[in-house]
């Protein structure tokens, strides 16, 4: 399409203006801001999109403020084979008019005109191309979307025929839509119903599997039940012969038990017979022992009797011997007694003589003693009266001496007072009237007074007093001694002492004589003895006391006679004692014999008793069972034992023949077999019950129903899913095929587009410039001087220039015929003057073949475009 002319009336600030555009080449529409350079594309948009009756905001916006007029647009274009003028007035007296000038003149109005214009435009202009080639003000940095532009694609694809309206995008869109029913567009994941049916198939299949497994399980159990039943039958069948065998073995066992019991009994029999035999033998032995003992007792008795008779003979002899000895002893005794009497008489005579002698001696001693005692007593009495002894004398003498010495000392030391009466006046000395001269030692003080005249006091000195006192003390002691001994003076004392010494000697002598006479005895006792002795000795007949000599002579003769008599008596006594001893010995022997005899007698008695007892026992035993009978009993017992042993041996043989051990083993085995079968039966029955329970649980659950229902559901789900899967596969294949071919085609387009772009680009960016273009025909990156920069990272200027270059390349490729005008509204504002210069060159070059409309408020920007025709819009 080419726009030849636009006429605007009452359009924004424009009252009426016609803009003529170069059909091929560049038209620069200049105008300050707000004047309406943008009115050109806006007017084209309105006339295309809105009915004349429209009151849309876009329409009302263009009405001049405050004027009651209708905006009017007239557009003259050449598009495809058509050359037409299209006029539309909005709002006020709206009208639409289409004049077709070529190829066949035609005129339409109103709605018909509008629709026809749409149809013609749709037929000849790709709306995407139209959009792509317009740079709207303020959007110059964005790349156009070129890949879907059919004319461009047609231009790029050498073989492609002309595509129908809507192209393949609609078809691709429908394929995508269909695809989206089954898969997600990004990752191709299964989705929607297709996914849901797959899930349903899976879950239903799981259900079917589970049910099938359960049913299989149930069938296994049923089979197991049948197996167990069969096994039970087998076990029961197997049990019967085992039971029979067991029964038979048990009866054999019972028979064996009987045999064992019989053997037991016969053994007891043997033992009993053995006991009986032993007992009989013991009885025989006892009988023998009894007889032997009896014989022993008889012998013993007999022997005792013999011994006793011997002993009695010996006793008789002994008695005779003893009698003889006794009489001999008696005679000797008598003789001895006579001699003893004689001896006693001699002794008496001796005693009498001695008594007489003693009486005389005792009397003498008593007399001497009595005399001595009297003498002593007299001396003693004298001594009693005279106590003055030599010691006293000495004491007296000493005292007298002391006194004399003391008086001498006193007298020598004391002042001497001499008073002599010289007148006749009375003189008192010491209270005593002096009648003579007075001389005295003054020992203490002496007062000499002449009454009425004078009083002289003489006082002894200190020494004088002491000496006086000492003399007084000695005198006192002396007087005391005299007083004590009741003696007048020393001489008398000395005499008394001489007498005393004499008396003492006398008394001493008397005492010695007394002691000699007493010779230790007491005088009174001696007197009593003497008295008694005298009474005894001196018979009334003979009251005389023989002399001492006579009595001594008498004594000596009596002593002699007594000695002789004693010797004779002693000899006789000794002889008698011997004989008596012999007699006593004989009597002792006799007594022993008698004891012996008595003992023997007792033994004899015992032996007799024993003999009688054994005789009785033997008799009693024989009375019970005679010896013969006893022998028969023994023989019988022996025979019985033999019989029993034989019987027992027979039983044992039979028992061993019965094979008890073997029977036990077989029986045990049979019993175990039976037990095992019983256990098997029990276990199988238990299993059967268990299974029965499980089967009862299964019963009525309708597992098969459920399985079939689930299977049907699975079939349904699989059918549905299968259909979906088939469709999904179809759409996937379709989409994949289309996408692949489209991408291939696009990448084939990329090459010529890149070449066209680079050709233009090199004019601006230099000969080394290279671009990388995506299959969507978007510039992805630019390489200059070996450095590749992504489009988005480029400077604003470069982006804008490349975006414009892309459009220009597109327009160039599409060519004038199918193309659309390139409209640059306020573009290239980012370009520096150098670039602008080069862009101008490019625009000039493209303008050779394509219509380019540049709208700008900066006329200088596009001054350099050589072939540009400038249209100035001034403020109306």
């Amino acid at each position, binding site marked *: 399409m080419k726009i030849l002319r636009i006429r605007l009336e009452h359009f924004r600030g424009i009252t009426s203006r016609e803009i003529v555009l170069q059909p091929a080449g560049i038209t620069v529409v200049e105008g300050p801001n707000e004047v309406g350079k943008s009115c050109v594309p806006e007017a084209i948009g309105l006339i295309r999109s809105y009915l004349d009756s429209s009151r849309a905001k876009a329409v009302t916006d263009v009405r001049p403020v405050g004027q009651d007029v209708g905006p009017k647009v007239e557009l003259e274009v050449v598009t495809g084979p058509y050359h037409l003028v299209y006029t539309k007035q909005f709002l006020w007296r709206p009208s639409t008019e289409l004049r077709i000038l070529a190829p066949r003149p035609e005129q339409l109005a109103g709605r018909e005109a509008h629709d026809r214009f749409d149809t013609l435009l749709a037929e000849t202009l790709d709306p995407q191309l139209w959009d792509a080639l317009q740079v709207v003000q303020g959007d110059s940095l964005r790349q156009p979307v070129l890949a879907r532009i059919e004319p461009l694609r047609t231009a790029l694809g050498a073989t492609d025929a002309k595509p129908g309206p809507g192209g*393949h995008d609609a*078809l691709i869109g429908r*394929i995508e839509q269909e695809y989206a029913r089954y898969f997600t567009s990004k990752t191709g994941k299964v989705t929607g119903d297709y996914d849901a049916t797959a899930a349903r198939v899976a879950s239903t299949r799981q259900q079917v599997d589970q049910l099938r497994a359960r049913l299989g399980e149930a069938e296994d159990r049923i089979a197991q039940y*049948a197996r167990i039943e069969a096994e039970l039958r087998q076990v029961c069948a197997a049990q019967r012969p085992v039971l029979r065998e067991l029964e038979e073995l048990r009866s054999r066992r019972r028979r064996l038990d009987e045999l064992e019991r019989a053997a037991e009994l016969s053994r007891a029999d043997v033992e009993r017979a053995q006991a009986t035999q032993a007992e009989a033998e013991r009885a025989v032995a006892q009988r023998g022992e009894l007889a032997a003992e009896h014989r022993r007792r008889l012998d013993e008795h007999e022997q005792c009797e013999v011994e006793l008779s011997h002993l009695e003979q010996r006793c008789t002899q002994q008695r005779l011997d003893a009698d003889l000895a006794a009489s001999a002893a008696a005679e000797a005794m008598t003789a001895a007694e006579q001699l003893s009497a004689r001896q006693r008489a001699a002794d008496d005579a001796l005693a009498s003589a001695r008594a007489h002698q003693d009486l005389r001696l005792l009397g003498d001693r008593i007399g001497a003693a009595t005399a001595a005692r009297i003498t002593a007593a007299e001396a003693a009495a004298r001594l009693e009266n005279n106590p003055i002894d030599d010691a006293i004398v000495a004491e007296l003498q000493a005292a007298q001496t002391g006194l004399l010495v003391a008086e001498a000392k006193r007298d020598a030391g004391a002042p001497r007072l001499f008073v002599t009466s010289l007148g006749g006046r009375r003189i008192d000395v010491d209270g005593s009237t002096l009648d003579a001269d007075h001389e005295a030692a003054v020992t203490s003080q002496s007062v000499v007074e002449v009454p009425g005249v004078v009083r002289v006091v003489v006082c002894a000195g200190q020494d004088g007093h002491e000496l006086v006192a000492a003399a007084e003390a000695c005198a006192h002691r002396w007087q005391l001694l005299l007083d004590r001994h009741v003696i007048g003076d020393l001489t008398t004392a000395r005499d008394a002492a001489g007498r005393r010494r004499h008396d003492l000697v006398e008394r001493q002598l008397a005492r010695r004589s007394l002691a000699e006479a007493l010779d230790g005895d007491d005088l009174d006792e001696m007197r009593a003895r003497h008295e008694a002795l005298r009474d005894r000795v001196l018979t009334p007949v003979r009251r005389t006391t023989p002399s001492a000599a006579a009595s001594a002579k008498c004594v000596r003769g009596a002593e002699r006679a007594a000695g002789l008599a004693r010797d004779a008596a002693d000899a006789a006594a000794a002889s008698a004692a011997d004989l008596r001893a012999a007699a006593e010995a004989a009597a002792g022997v006799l007594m022993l014999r008698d004891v012996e005899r008595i003992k023997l007698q007792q033994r004899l008695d015992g032996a007799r008793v024993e003999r009688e007892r054994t005789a009785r026992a033997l008799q009693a035993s024989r009375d019970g069972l005679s010896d013969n009978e006893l022998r028969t009993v023994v023989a019988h017992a022996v025979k019985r034992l033999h019989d029993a042993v034989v019987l027992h041996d027979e039983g044992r043989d039979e028992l061993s023949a019965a094979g008890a051990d073997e029977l036990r083993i077989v029986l045990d085995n049979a019993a175990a077999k039976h037990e095992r079968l019983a256990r098997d039966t029990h276990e199988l029955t238990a299993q059967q019950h268990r299974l029965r329970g499980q089967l009862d649980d299964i019963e009525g659950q309708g597992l098969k129903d459920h399985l079939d229902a689930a299977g*049907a559901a699975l079939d349904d789900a699989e059918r549905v899913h299968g259909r979906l899967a088939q469709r999904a596969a179809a759409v996937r294949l379709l989409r994949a095929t*289309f996408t692949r071919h489209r991408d291939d085609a*696009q990448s084939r387009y990329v090459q010529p587009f890149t070449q066209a772009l680079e050709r233009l680009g090199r004019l601006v960016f230099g000969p080394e410039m290279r671009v990388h273009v995506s299959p969507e025909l978007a510039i992805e990156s630019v390489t200059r001087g070996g450095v590749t920069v992504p489009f988005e990272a480029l400077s604003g200027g470069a982006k804008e220039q490349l975006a414009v270059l892309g459009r220009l390349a597109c327009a160039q490729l599409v060519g004038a015929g199918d193309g659309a005008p390139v409209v640059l509204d306020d573009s290239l504002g980012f370009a520096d003057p150098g670039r602008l210069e080069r862009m101008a060159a490019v625009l000039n070059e493209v303008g050779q073949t394509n219509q380019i409309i540049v709208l700008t408020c900066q006329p200088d920007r596009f001054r350099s475009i050589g072939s540009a025709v400038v249209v100035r819009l001034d403020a109306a």
Partner: protein
Amino acid sequence: MRLHTSVGDGSYGDEMRFIATADWQLGMTASYLTAEARPRFAQARLDVIRAIGELAAERAVDFVLVCGDVFESNQLDRQVVLRAFDALRAVAVPVYLLPGNHDPLDSASIYTSATFRDRCPDHVHVLAEPGPVTVLPGVEVVAAPWSNKAPLCDLVARACADLGPSDDVIRIVAGHGVVDTLNPDRDSLAAISVAALQAQVDAGRIHMCVLGDRHSTTQVTERIWYAGAPEVTDRDETDPGNVLVVDIDTAQPAARVAVERVHVGRWEFEVAARELGSVEDVDALVGWLDGHSGKDRTAIWLKLSGTLSVRDKARLDAALEEQAEIFGSVLIWERHYDLSVVPDDCDFGDLGLTGFADDAVRELVQMAGCEPGGAEAQDALGLLYRLTEASR
């Protein structure tokens, strides 16, 4: 015994009559049907019991003998049993149920379940023990029930092993399983020996043998029959939906047995093979489908082959999608699917595709003609066709 007088020429004596059926498969779920059609199908197989009840009354039969697989499984919900009993109450005569391989008398058998024991109507009997059971005076059913899913012998032969001369008794064998003459696995231990059974027939010890397991009504020998399922259960069944009305002359049971197959089922399962080469073929197929009556009781499996343009294939798909909503089910049998889609000039020529779009379509067209990925490319082209349809 109720006695019937033959409607024939009257030369026969009194007759005994019963309905033989099998393979009710109650509780079966038909997963190939649409979810919406499944309850209808389940209900239909209960309704068919009532239809049998009506037939029993109409033909005045003495009893109904169901030869195995009464239930689809032992592991069913109790409501299946309760609904079955409810339907069975519509049958006025005694009904004898034989446990089959689907519902064997094992330890979890549905027949011994509490619900069954407690709620079983009085006139319904389970043939639990192998061997003869007197069902009427002078009539014995020799039952060969399954006690587990894998018997190790010919159960029918075993049940008949101890049979003596029939004398005055009519003997009907009720069995279940594959007969050896029809069984490809001839070594199968459980296969029913036809020869042995026929020998019993020939010896006069049995007079009729009804078998279950084969859902298509099949006459094996003169007196050995598969009753078939009274309502179709699978697309490979050749003659399902029948029961047998069996008449036996009580006076001369060995002389004549009349077996009549009566169709009671209401559902149809069809397999249709079509080679499609043009829009006319597509339209013909759609017309054929449209022509069906009772679409809601019909399931169709299509074996498609041939070559269609993208446009025609899209037309076919749209039509089948619509029909699938109306029918019990319309399924393309994948295993037998051999339909190629080849874009022709008409498909995309008027789209004005240029450049890469044109290249892409060319590539897909090329892919569509070769494997692998051909089907997917065909689908992609179909989709492209659909997406561009609006702009045509």
